[in-house]
């Protein structure tokens, strides 16, 4: 009557445990264990514009970075504040249009329009989303999905802001290198800034809002105020991406509100690993180039894309980054029970 059964046991690697405390700075090995993943990421991103084969792929890097900003903002909102925002396109559109208007109507150069669009866009998005912030779960998801659609339709129907033609004649960046390095540095900056932010006091409140908002409210904190702060940060990132996109394409139009900007960041977050912040960025660096490679298949690539997304969310919902972290920090073995 003995049934042999096994289970998988996971234990932290020794080096992981040793490098947990401050004394890890005493040893090169442990120091490099800690810094290597970060260095690989930072150096990898900085070197990237030199190793890609053509100007076309350098443009792709910019697009990847814009999607990465969006994915970061989605991850921050969804997995640290509990607001599932399906309206990435809304941020892109608002930021893009602000930058285009400032540039064409007021003649401001890109290095002025981008910061203004970031801050102003963040404020506008936050104010517009403010009435919806008390909503939870699927209700907020649906309402945020509708925002970019309605803005696009309103622009089309009222024929304002250039109507269906969009705003043309926006200045470009001075060179391809500037746009790439500006975006890469922005992604790195926001990535590490937000990683830091979610571990500060305010990050604790954010996570508490996600886990149990009634408890936060009972502690005498205004939930909507904290949610608004998070939305401001996230939408400012999205607007930054949108403003850069406008200057890269030298054009702002209704396609800034396209569903791509809402869907691809979510797909990247699912594939990269939800709630890790770094995962969504990696997901973008995998997904967007793959979809560029598949461009010759036309709309079939969207089919592939959706099927991969569906498979990931159903069968492998933890994502690459969570898997990778586990392998890096722990080892597994079978033990008899």
């Amino acid at each position, binding site marked *: 009557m003995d049934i042999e059964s096994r289970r998988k046991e996971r234990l932290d690697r020794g080096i992981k445990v040793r490098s947990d405390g401050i004394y890890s700075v005493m040893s090169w090995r442990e120091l490099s264990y800690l810094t290597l993943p970060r260095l690989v990421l930072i150096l990898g991103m900085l070197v990237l514009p030199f190793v890609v084969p053509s100007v076309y792929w350098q443009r792709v890097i910019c697009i990847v970075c814009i999607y990465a900003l969006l994915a970061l903002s989605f991850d921050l909102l969804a997995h640290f504040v509990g607001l599932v925002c399906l309206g990435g396109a809304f941020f892109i559109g608002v930021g893009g249009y602000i930058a285009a208007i400032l540039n064409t109507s007021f003649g401001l150069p890109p290095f002025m329009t981008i910061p203004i669009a970031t801050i102003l866009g963040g404020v506008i998005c936050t104010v517009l989303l403010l009435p919806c912030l008390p909503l939870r779960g699927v209700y907020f998801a649906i309402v945020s999905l509708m925002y970019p659609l309605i803005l696009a339709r309103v622009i089309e129907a009222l024929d304002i802001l250039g109507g269906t033609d969009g705003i043309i004649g926006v200045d470009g960046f001075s060179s391809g290198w500037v746009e790439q390095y500006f975006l890469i540095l922005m992604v790195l900056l926001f990535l590490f800034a937000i990683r830091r932010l979610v571990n500060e006091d305010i990050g604790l409140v954010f996570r508490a809002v996600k886990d149990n908002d009634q408890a936060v409210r009972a502690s005498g904190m205004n939930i909507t105020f904290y949610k608004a702060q998070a939305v401001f940060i996230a939408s400012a990132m999205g607007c930054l991406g949108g403003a850069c996109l406008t200057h890269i394409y030298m054009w702002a139009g209704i396609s800034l509100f396209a569903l791509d900007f809402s869907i691809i960041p979510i797909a990247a977050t699912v594939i990269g690993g939800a709630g890790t912040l770094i995962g969504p960025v990696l997901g973008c660096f995998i997904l967007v180039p793959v979809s560029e490679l598949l461009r010759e298949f036309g709309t079939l690539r969207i089919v592939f894309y959706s099927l991969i997304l569906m498979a990931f969310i159903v*069968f492998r919902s933890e994502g690459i980054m969570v898997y990778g972290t586990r392998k890096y920090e722990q080892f597994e073995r079978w033990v008899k029970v």
Partner: protein
Amino acid sequence: MEILIYGIINSISLALLALGFALVYGISRVPNFAHGALYVVTGFITWSLLNTLGLNYPLSIVIAIIIIGVVGALFYQFILIRVRGMAISEIVASYAFGLAILEGLRWGGFKGLTYTLPVFIKGSINIGDIPVDYHRILVVVIGAAVVTGLWAFTHFTRVGLALRGMAQDERAALMLGIDSDRMALVAMGLGSMLAGLAGIVLLPLGNIVVEAGYNVLILAIAVCIVGGLGSWVGAVLAAFLIGFAQILTVVYWGAHFQMVVALLAIILTLIFRPSGLFGQQKELEERV
């Protein structure tokens, strides 16, 4: 008079579009974002059966509806069942499924003006002094029949009662021996068939285009949210509300605003009364 007649027709069409979505959400709490895709793909299946295989019209309609019901049920059984209860995964998975269908159709070359389904009965009639074609009248008749049929089904058959029980309280239904996964499967199949039926009834009024899938999804969501997610009576009433609102805006402002009305309806309803005008208020579940 014109507003009244076309308002009624538009409202019934909206009700047809939304019933499938409302049914699935009401019973299994799965927001089926593939609804619009199922609507469009039924049109193409019918068209293929009709023109490629040369079957006659009623037969191809029946086959297409059965196919789409099976597709919906299989999609539930193999994909959705694994993420059930995780609202966001449900949305993403079903939306990805719908996207795959729609873009697959576009890739397969199903675009352009050649794809039209014939109307059921040709000709038109004058009501007062407004011409209305027979097909639109038929839409109203079929819509009313579907609503009544669904009401009768959920009130007088065992399966229907089980479905309604699940919609009201899933745990209590489980305790009474109702297999919740099986019922959700039935609901998904039924909901897909309703989406398909709506497609077949409404698509002959124009061309079959892939883009319709996205619009239909928005309209269905609008109707369901205004009526209250999960409330079938609310969905029908909301269909009339939005239907007339759309016709009025088209008459007084222009056709561009038709979609804006639906989207505004969604946003305003969610802000002021997330459970919809006719839904049960569950204040704590939806907002803080």
